[in-house]
Structure formats: structure tokens, C-alpha cells
């Protein structure tokens, strides 16, 4: 048995989904002082692959995030030493920890979402609701949507808000089945597989490690002893591929000097289908401001906007916050003062170029070039929209004035093509020249790197997009690469002007306001690209589109896209990726989440991993792309890739 080495593998316990603003309303066996405290409700995956719902009070969260050791995670006690709390933990922390509520998903029997999505109740025993939570933002339906991706449910007949959990452990069953279907191996080796299947239920973690060690063993040592020249590695690769076929995996077998690495690239968890919400309404927006006009629940506002956008009637007001023109925490009175100051600043910059004489202009070629570019583009911007149509349309003059003033505001950047596209919907909505200018400044702040002289920002995004697509839709990424389109240049227009050319004005306003929230992660706009491409995947692959056809097809999608469907798909893909067990540092960086290579620290280190001497490299997760674990089997040292194991346990 090789159980001892299992202890060396770091515990992994992670949040698959978290939702803030959740109050504990009632909980059986809890002291009254815990009730009504605010916290977050999460779906957590334990180190052993089991999942639970977890509620954490907010005052715990700060402690929680810097101790990522997850020592307290509930572990599967079968076949494994029960872990104890580590000694250096303070009693405060232990006390706070005791307030966490955990509901293992395989114990969950029923749950209910009621009171207009404000309340959720959970039960692990028939007839009693053990825990009741109140959702401040009235968005419990989102939690339900995510939860349903992890448990199979049926609705009860008498109450459509109550869900009964039918099959808790569906994934391991899928895996069992796929292994059971195998029959490639000779008698001897089939036993290994069958043992694996039968042991898997009781001891999933060790069984998997063990099984892989044996498979590895066969790959590497099987050749010599038994079958002479037969290339078993191919068979094993095939076996693994087939075994994971239900999960659509790809497998590569690479040979190194000492051992064989079977690298199963696991697929993502199933894609959740997340419904879009209703737009932030006037009532809600007003309710989120205090009597003096400060926005009190900034995160809540962002969440709501991310989920459903903003009602058209209040966009004019909300956009100014989203685009960092109006600070959320300012009172109405302070905003008035700010607006006055910003108005003066705008007009003084406008005066700078307005007062330039023809003579000055003739000797100022850089200025002249920018001006002529602006003029040309203003005349070619959204002219089919009634707001900008017709000769001598005064709104074109406003576009021109704002862009020229922006040239004075940021002369180094000046005017770059695409800016007029960014500006037009803002002016259309806001109407007012000064407001539009400052909101434009805010938007440009978010996407300034798109317009770099060296285009480094665009290139980086295209690279990131390619990496994300490879992770989310490897088949499509492979097809594109085989058609000379791996550089993703055909997505250039999407990224440069944030899909402005792909949607109507109505839809682009929705898409932009959602993206401005910065939720649910950095670079969510790349997920929009992935979502669009993923929905075209079948066409692109089945028709075997080449270099030119790919570009044409993508260009022709303009005005044929459904913004809500794409947002929903993009969010689904986001959740697939974020909960993927094999999330690489490359992807983590794109998402703006901590990498596993550098341990999460409160202060970011200036030079990570350079002069660090880490004695325990082999078990330190994520230092390299492949995480290897060394196991002993029949006296032989065998290394396998832990990612594989996580994938199987996911």
C-alpha cells in the first residue's frame, strides 16, 4: 500500500461558487447571536472531491483568505487518517471557524427558494428546515442555478419552489461506468481496472492514485516482461481516452528518462446554464442610495448590473458611476461641485484647440494629422443611426469637439481609429457634451491599451484569448491553429472596440454596462469572445473553414448575435473554467486570480520565485505546469501527474 505518500499531497479545498450578502436567518442548534449576521454562501469542493454548501460570516472572511491551508476541511475519514487542527491556529480563529455552517451535498435532501428569491432553506432530514438564509439582493435564484449544477434535483409536485435532491454523486458514477466499459486489457490488467472501479467508491482518492500508478507501471514496465515488442503505451493512452470519453478527454503520453507520464487533459465541469436577470430598476437604484445620494451597496449594485444590466431610464445616471466619472460614495451635493469643476476643466481644454489659428495649425503637423483623422472618422461613424444621420448633423459636431478635446486631454495617445465608435453610443445616451466627454475618458481608461502605438495591449489580449479558448474549447482552438488562425487576428475588431461593430446600439449598451462592472473576473470580455466562438464551433469545424472563411464568417456575425444568450454562455464558461480542477497559472493570470505557483500572501512579492529556496519542491503545487507525485509501487518509484487525479475526482 502506498497510503503514506498520499499525506504529502497538499489538501485542496476550493470555492466553486460564492455569493455575498447572505444573512443567516435560522439554524438549528445555533446560538441566537449568530443569527442575522451577514456572510457569504458558497459551494465548496473538498480535497476529496466531495462538495458542500458553506455559509461563512463576513468577519471570518478576512482570516479565511490568508490561511489557505484548508486544514479544517472536512475530510473523508474512510481509509485515511483523520486530520487534526494544526497547532498554530489561534483560538479566535477556531471560534470564528465554528460559526461556519456546512451542509455536505451528499447529505442534502431538499432545498427551497421562496419570498421572491430572498430566502433559501436547506434540509438534510425530511420534514425539518435546518438552515434558512436571507439574500439581501433578492437574487437567490442565482444560487439555485449554480447549486443545480452540482446536485441532480426534481421539483416537488405541490410546491414549485422546493427541490428534492435525487442523486448526489453523479460524477463518480459516470466515471465508474466509463471504466466498466473497458475491455482492452489482458486478463491481468483488467483486474487492475476492475479493482479500481470497485474501490473507487470507498476510497476515491487513494484508489485513483493507485490505479494510475498501476497503469503507469503497465505502460513502462509491461513491455519488457510480458509481450515483447507490443507497444502498450498506445493501448493505455487509448484506454484512458476511452475511459474518459464520457467526459470528452484528450490524452497524451510522454516519455521521460525515468518514468512515463500519462497526462490526461481533463475536460471542464459541465457548463452551468445561468439565467440573466432583470435590469437594475429605478426603485432598486434609488433604494441603494442613502438620503444624501451616496450609493451604499456598491458591490450589490455591480452584482445586479452584471446580472441584468441597467434599465434604460436610469442609464444616464448609473453610467456615470460605472465609468468612474461620479464616485459612488459622493453625496448629491458633492457631485454638483464636482460637475461644475469638470465642466470648467472640459471647456478650458476645448478652448485650447479652438483658439488655435490657421497659421499655428499649418506649423503643427502632429495636431493637423490628428484633426484630419478625427474629421474623417466622425463622418463615418454610425451615420445610419437617426441621431447621427444627414448632412450637417449637429451631433457630428459634438462628436468632433469631444474627440478633439480628448486629443488635448491626452495628446500622446491622440486620436486612434475606433475611438469614434466607442464615443458614439455614449453621446447618444448621455446627450450632454461634458458628461459624455468624462464618461468617454473613463471608458478609455479601461481600454487604453487597445490603442497603444505598438499594439502590445491588443496582441496580449489576442494571446490570452487563444489561451482561454484552448482551455475552454480545445477542439476549436486546434481547428483554428490548423487553419493558420491561431493568432486570433480575426477577433481584432471585437476586441478593439469592445464588440461595438457586432451589435445594435441597444444591445451594445447592455453588453458594455455589464462589462464595465468588472465582474465576475478580469478580462470577462475575452469570455464573450469565447462564448461567440464556441457557439460557432460546429459550423467552423464541420464545414472545415479555412483561413479566409473563418475571417469572413466571424465578420459576418455582425448584427446577428443575441446579447443575452452570449452573456449567459460567457458566464457559464467562466464558471466551468473557474471550477476546473486543472486550472493553470496561465489562465489564473488572465482571470486575475492568485496563481498557485506563488502562495497567496497579503502583500504581493516583488520578485516571486527567484531567490526563494524551497526544500519541498516536489509537493509544492503549481511550481511547474505538471504537478508530479511520486508513489511507491512494488518497490518502483513511479511519478504521476496529480492534475490527472484531480480531474478524476472533480
Amino acid at each position, binding site marked *: 500500500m502506498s497510503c503514506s505518500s498520499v499525506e504529502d499531497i497538499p489538501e485542496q479545498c476550493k470555492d466553486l461558487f460564492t455569493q455575498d450578502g447572505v444573512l443567516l436567518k435560522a439554524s438549528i442548534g445555533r446560538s441566537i447571536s449568530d443569527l442575522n449576521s451577514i456572510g457569504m454562501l458558497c459551494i465548496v469542493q473538498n480535497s476529496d472531491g466531495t462538495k458542500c454548501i458553506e455559509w461563512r460570516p463576513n468577519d471570518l472572511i478576512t482570516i479565511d483568505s490568508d490561511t489557505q491551508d484548508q486544514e479544517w476541511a472536512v475530510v473523508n475519514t474512510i481509509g485515511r487518517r483523520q486530520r487534526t487542527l494544526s497547532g498554530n491556529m489561534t483560538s479566535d480563529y477556531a471560534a470564528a471557524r465554528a460559526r461556519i455552517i456546512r451542509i455536505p451535498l451528499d447529505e442534502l435532501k431538499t432545498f427551497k427558494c421562496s419570498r421572491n428569491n430572498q430566502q433559501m432553506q436547506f434540509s438534510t432530514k425530511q420534514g425539518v428546515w435546518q438552515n434558512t438564509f436571507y439574500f439581501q439582493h433578492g437574487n437567490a435564484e442565482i444560487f439555485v442555478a449554480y447549486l443545480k449544477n452540482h446536485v441532480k434535483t426534481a421539483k416537488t409536485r405541490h410546491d414549485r419552489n422546493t427541490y428534492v435532491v435525487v442523486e448526489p454523486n453523479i460524477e463518480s458514477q459516470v466515471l465508474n461506468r466509463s471504466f466498466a466499459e473497458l475491455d482492452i486489457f489482458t486478463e491481468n490488467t483488467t483486474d487492475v481496472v476492475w479493482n479500481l472501479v470497485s474501490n473507487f467508491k470507498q476510497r476515491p482518492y487513494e484508489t485513483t492514485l493507485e490505479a494510475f500508478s498501476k497503469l503507469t507501471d503497465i505502460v513502462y514496465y509491461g513491455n519488457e516482461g510480458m509481450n515483447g515488442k507490443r507497444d502498450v503505451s498506445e493501448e493505455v493512452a487509448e484506454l484512458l481516452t476511452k475511459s474518459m470519453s464520457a467526459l470528452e478527454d484528450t490524452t497524451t503520453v510522454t516519455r521521460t528518462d525515468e518514468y512515463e507520464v500519462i497526462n490526461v487533459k481533463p475536460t471542464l465541469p459541465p457548463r452551468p446554464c445561468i439565467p440573466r436577470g432583470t435590469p437594475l430598476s429605478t426603485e432598486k437604484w434609488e433604494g441603494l442610495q442613502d438620503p444624501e445620494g451616496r450609493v451604499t451597496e456598491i458591490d450589490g449594485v455591480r452584482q445586479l448590473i452584471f446580472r441584468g444590466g441597467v434599465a434604460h431610464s436610469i442609464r444616464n445616471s448609473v453610467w456615470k458611476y460605472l465609468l468612474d466619472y461620479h464616485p459612488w460614495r459622493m453625496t448629491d451635493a458633492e457631485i454638483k461641485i464636482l460637475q461644475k469643476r469638470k465642466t470648467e476643466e472640459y471647456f478650458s481644454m476645448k478652448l485650447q484647440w479652438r483658439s488655435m489659428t490657421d497659421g499655428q495649425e499649418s506649423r503643427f503637423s502632429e495636431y493637423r*494629422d490628428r484633426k*484630419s*483623422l478625427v474629421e*474623417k*472618422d466622425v*463622418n*463615418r*461613424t454610425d*451615420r*445610419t443611426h437617426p441621431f447621427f*444621420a444627414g448632412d450637417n448633423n449637429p451631433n457630428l459636431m459634438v462628436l468632433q469637439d469631444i474627440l478633439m478635446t480628448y486629443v488635448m486631454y491626452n495628446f500622446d495617445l491622440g486620436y*486612434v*481609429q*475606433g475611438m*469614434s*465608435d466607442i464615443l458614439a453610443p455614449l453621446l447618444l445616451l448621455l446627450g450632454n457634451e461634458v458628461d459624455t466627454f468624462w464618461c468617454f475618458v473613463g471608458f478609455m481608461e479601461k481600454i487604453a491599451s487597445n*490603442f*497603444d*502605438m*505598438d*499594439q502590445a495591449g*491588443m*496582441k496580449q489580449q489576442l494571446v490570452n484569448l487563444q489561451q482561454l479558448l484552448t482551455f475552454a474549447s480545445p477542439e476549436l482552438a486546434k481547428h483554428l491553429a490548423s*487553419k*493558420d488562425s491561431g*493568432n486570433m*487576428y*480575426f477577433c*481584432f*475588431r471585437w476586441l*478593439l*472596440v469592445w464588440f461595438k*461593430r457586432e451589435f445594435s446600439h441597444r444591445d451594445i449598451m447592455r453588453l458594455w454596462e455589464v462589462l464595465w462592472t468588472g465582474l465576475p473576473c478580469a478580462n470577462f470580455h475575452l469570455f464573450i469572445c469565447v462564448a461567440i466562438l464556441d457557439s460557432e464551433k460546429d459550423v467552423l469545424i464541420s464545414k472545415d473553414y*479555412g*483561413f*479566409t472563411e473563418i*475571417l*469572413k464568417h466571424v*465578420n459576418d456575425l455582425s448584427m446577428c448575435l443575441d446579447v443575452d444568450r452570449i452573456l449567459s454562455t460567457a458566464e457559464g464558461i467562466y464558471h466551468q473554467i473557474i471550477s476546473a480542477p486543472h486550472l493553470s497559472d496561465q489562465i489564473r493570470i488572465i482571470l486575475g486570480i492568485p496563481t498557485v505557483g506563488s502562495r497567496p500572501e497579503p502583500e504581493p512579492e516583488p520578485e516571486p520565485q527567484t531567490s526563494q529556496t524551497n526544500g519541498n519542491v516536489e509537493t509544492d503545487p503549481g511550481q511547474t505546469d505538471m504537478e508530479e507525485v511520486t508513489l511507491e509501487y512494488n518497490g518502483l518509484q513511479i511519478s504521476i501527474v496529480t492534475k490527472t487525479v484531480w480531474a478524476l475526482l472533480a
Partner: protein
Amino acid sequence: MAKTYDYLFKLLLIGDSGVGKTSILFRFSEDAFNISFISTIGIDFKIRTIDLDGKKVKLQIWDTAGQERFRTITTAYYRGSMGIMLVYDVTNEKSFENIKNWIRNIEENASADVEKMILGNKCDLDAKRQVSKERGEQLAVEYQIKFVETSAKDSLNVEFAFYTLARDIKAKMEKKQEASNPPGGRTGAHQLRANEQQRKPTSWLSRCSVL
């Protein structure tokens, strides 16, 4: 499947922003002109099949965004092009001066023997003219490139320009074919079957570009 064309040529339109590249392409592919045309972002192409000395020639014409900083991306699409239209605006001195830069750009990014042509566009705007026809002709002589003044608006010389460029490419191609084939060989030896071309247009193009 019916044979739809004998040749496929990849052409490219380049020049400063606003000189009328998209308008010229629109005129040629749709025979229309739109004064308030949308500016080009990134890259796109249009197709038109023309008849040239009894042969069907399918022109795949690529339109690019003009601003300098986007060139790193757009030049990726230069590869494999067989003909390039260099466009300037006769009412804009700067766009004319920049033709030299564009030629240098081609030399760095397109195959050496690509056919070229210079177009002085917007010649309908005589009152605003900054570049005389003579200066255009002089430049063309200097670089030994064909030249014509065009107007996308009035549909002047646009057809002529594309036909001329296509004919030059065809002639060059046939000459090279003859050189590599023994004389007296089958006349249609260089032709590809239409179906074949449609299935693999890119690989065919890349072969042509090194002809």
C-alpha cells in the same frame, strides 16, 4: 459541381485612412457609392468574379484599416497576395507622400514579385485637388508601377484599374507556367479544377504567390 472560375487572385488595397479604399472596393464589388461609409476596423475582403480573355477570374480583394499602428496586424494578411493597389487621395498631399512608405511596407511584408498599381482617388474633387496628375505619373515612373486616377464616387477608372491589375497578374502567371512547362505541352496545364480550388483556396494561393 459546376466550374465557377479558372483562377483565384488575392488582391490587397492599402493606403492612408480615408483615401477611399473601402469606397473603391464597394464600387467594384457592388457598383455603388455611399458618402457616409463606415470606417474600416481590422480587415475584411470582398469577392468579385470577372471575365478575362475568356477565363473566369475570381478576385478576392482585401481591405485594411489604414492607421499606422494597426499595420502589425494587417500585414499578416499581406502574405500570399498577388496584386496590391496603392491608394492615395488627390485632395490630400500627405496621403500621396505616404505612398513611398506604403511601398516600403510592401517590400517588407509581401512577396517580391507582387504586381502593384497606384491609384489617385477622388479625382472628381477637382476644386480641392492638392496632387496633380503629373506628380502621380512621375511617382509611378520612378517606381515603375502602373498608375491611374480614379473616382469611387463617379465610378471612374475603378473597373479599369482592377481589370488591368488582374490581367497583369494573369500574364505573369502564364509566363512563369510556360517557362516551367516544356513547350507544346497541354495549354490548360496550369489550370486547376474549380472544385479543387474551392476546397483549398489558401493552399492554392500560397503556391501561386511563389510562382
